């Protein structure tokens, strides 16, 4: 399984502030990868480094085996839809397709034409008068018709209404099925990605907190509810991600490759959103503990997240 994107100790600094720091990451090919993290986690910086809009201040990044650059050869292999799906407001839909055709040697005019037809867009309409959803679809069309091997989308649905969101993700899935392209799409809301991703990367403060295939992640995480337990007494292969206790009851989210054998637990399935929130919370808490080593008062981990 080769990596479409791999980063080693990758960092990007603006002045004194590191937008991304010491980031290690591998994204395997052949997946639709959700890159999830809270605002400010470094997602956009990471993506801009991957498409060559930024150059690293530290470390290395490789995309499709090469350093990202503004060389035409590398640019032609990666399709990119930027945040807020920028388009030229004063140019028409047809102008945008002409842009794509002029600026991409591998341009697939047939794909572009069909997508615009399917989307029921008027080629003469100015991009500035398109709805947010239509604009996003136009941006996706540009990225797709250049026939990339790897498609990167930065918060593509963040500003769309729920219906446009669903339609956008549907047409993205059609592209994935037709072209077999590897995809990374970022979001700060895992709910956006749940339906389309088969691989998940959770990024918090430049660190990968969790990475893996969605099925495996769901299969290896469990919510345990039972009488109050001491978490230190759990079997070794069960790692507590999140815990909350009342006087009588404990609720844990654990990672465990083996089955849960202790019969006093009620074992529940976790969904992707719970999982992501738990990992983000863990990262948030560890940050807070580092800053305040004495602990002070006990903080419920969910409070940190919310």
């Amino acid at each position, binding site marked *: 399984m080769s990596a479409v994107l791999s980063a080693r100790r990758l960092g990007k600094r603006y002045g004194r502030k590191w937008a991304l720091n010491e980031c290690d990451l591998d994204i395997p090919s052949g997946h639709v990868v959700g890159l999830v993290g809270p605002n400010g986690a470094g997602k956009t910086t990471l993506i801009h480094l991957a498409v060559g809009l*930024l150059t690293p201040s530290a470390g290395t990044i490789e995309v499709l085996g090469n350093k990202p650059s*503004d060389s035409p050869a590398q*640019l032609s292999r990666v399709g990119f839809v930027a945040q807020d799906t*920028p*388009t030229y407001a004063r140019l028409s839909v047809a*102008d945008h397709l*002409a*842009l794509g055709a002029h600026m991409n040697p*591998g341009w697939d005019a047939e794909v572009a034409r069909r997508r615009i037809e399917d989307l029921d867009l008027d080629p003469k309409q100015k991009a500035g008068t398109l709805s947010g959803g239509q604009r996003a679809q136009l941006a996706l069309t540009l990225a797709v018709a*250049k026939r990339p091997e790897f498609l990167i989308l930065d918060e593509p649905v963040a500003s769309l209404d729920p219906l446009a969101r669903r339609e956008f993700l549907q047409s993205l899935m059609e592209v994935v099925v037709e072209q077999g392209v590897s995809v990374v799409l970022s979001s700060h809301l895992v709910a956006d990605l749940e339906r389309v991703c088969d691989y998940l990367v959770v990024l918090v403060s430049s660190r990968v907190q969790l990475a893996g295939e969605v099925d495996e992640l769901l299969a290896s995480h469990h919510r345990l509810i039972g009488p109050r337990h001491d978490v230190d007494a759990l079997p070794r292969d069960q790692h507590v991600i999140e815990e909350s206790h009342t006087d009588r009851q404990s609720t844990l989210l654990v990672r465990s490759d083996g089955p849960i054998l202790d019969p006093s637990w009620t074992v529940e399935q976790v969904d992707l959103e719970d999982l992501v929130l738990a990992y983000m919370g863990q990262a948030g808490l560890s940050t807070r503990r580092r800053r305040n080593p004495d602990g002070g008062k006990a903080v419920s981990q969910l409070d940190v997240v919310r």
Partner: protein
Amino acid sequence: MIAFGWRQFRGQALVGAAGLVVVGVVLAITGPHLVSVYDSAVAACRESGGQSAVCNSNPVTITYRGLQYGVIAVVLVMPALIGMFWGAPLIAHELETGTFRLAWTQSVSRTRWLLVKLGLVGLASFLAAGLLSLMANWWGSPLDAASPDRFGAGNFAVHGFVAGGYALFAFALGVTAGLILRRTLPAMAITLAGFIAARFVVTDWVRAHYMSPVTFTQKLSASNTGFQLNGPIGSHATASVMAQAPGLPNAWVYGARIVNDAGQSPTTAVMQQACPNLGTAVPPPGLFKKGGPGTLGSHSTTGATGGIQDAFTHCINTLSANYHAAVTYQPANRFWTFQAIETALFVVLGLVLAGVCTWWVRHRIT
């Protein structure tokens, strides 16, 4: 990429072309009448054997003064407008709206993207301003013939093709400001200020040094000199004399100085010896309209009569034995050389700015 660059620029290009067409139509409509006014005045002068008043002042310069000023203003302002409305938004607008992320992730290197945009709109800037300038020159040629001074510091900029160089520079300045500031509006302001500053600096301090001026000497006479009195008139004023620069058609006259063969100006001692009575002669009443006793009076000899006129004539005659007027100027036939040098200067400045843009796009916006 060129086709797309044009597609993006099309709207602004049309606005610019429409402006040129409007100016062109106005000039084409008024041009023939202007020529006929000029020609009939020239004919009238010839008929009168050179005695008519129109020989000295062709009425065309008065009839068309208003429109002439308008045309000059348009030619002067056009490069600044190009810099502000074609240059400043070129990259800044892409940075503001985020479309640079779209443009720079197509299969074209951003250097090429930049160079195509710069080349395309830069060429259009040069051509638009050059064309406007040529149209204005064609239209104004009778006016130039009536008062030939195209080399004069104020007229140089609106003649020939130098406006094309200004436009190219203003355009590059606008692009650079927009790229560095990342905002269109402040970039427009900077472009306007920077362009005006550059034009002033070059006009006032640089242009005169493109080539060493030519000097010729003129015998001093009462008709090409004037004098100035400092101090209480009629008693102990000190006098100084100065040469008047001759009017040379289409030449750029820097000035005239009174010097001896060694290049020295007359000292106070020389003046007192040659012109003992100039400071003490009583001026005719009403000669010095401005200023009371003890202030400075200055005038040319025209109209001066009586004692002071005699004193001045005596003074000049005495001085002319050892002194002459040295006139420094750029001959009219250097006009096109100067046009080429100034155009090249601004084009080179524009290219330097284009280099800055290229470097900035490659290294600073990453």
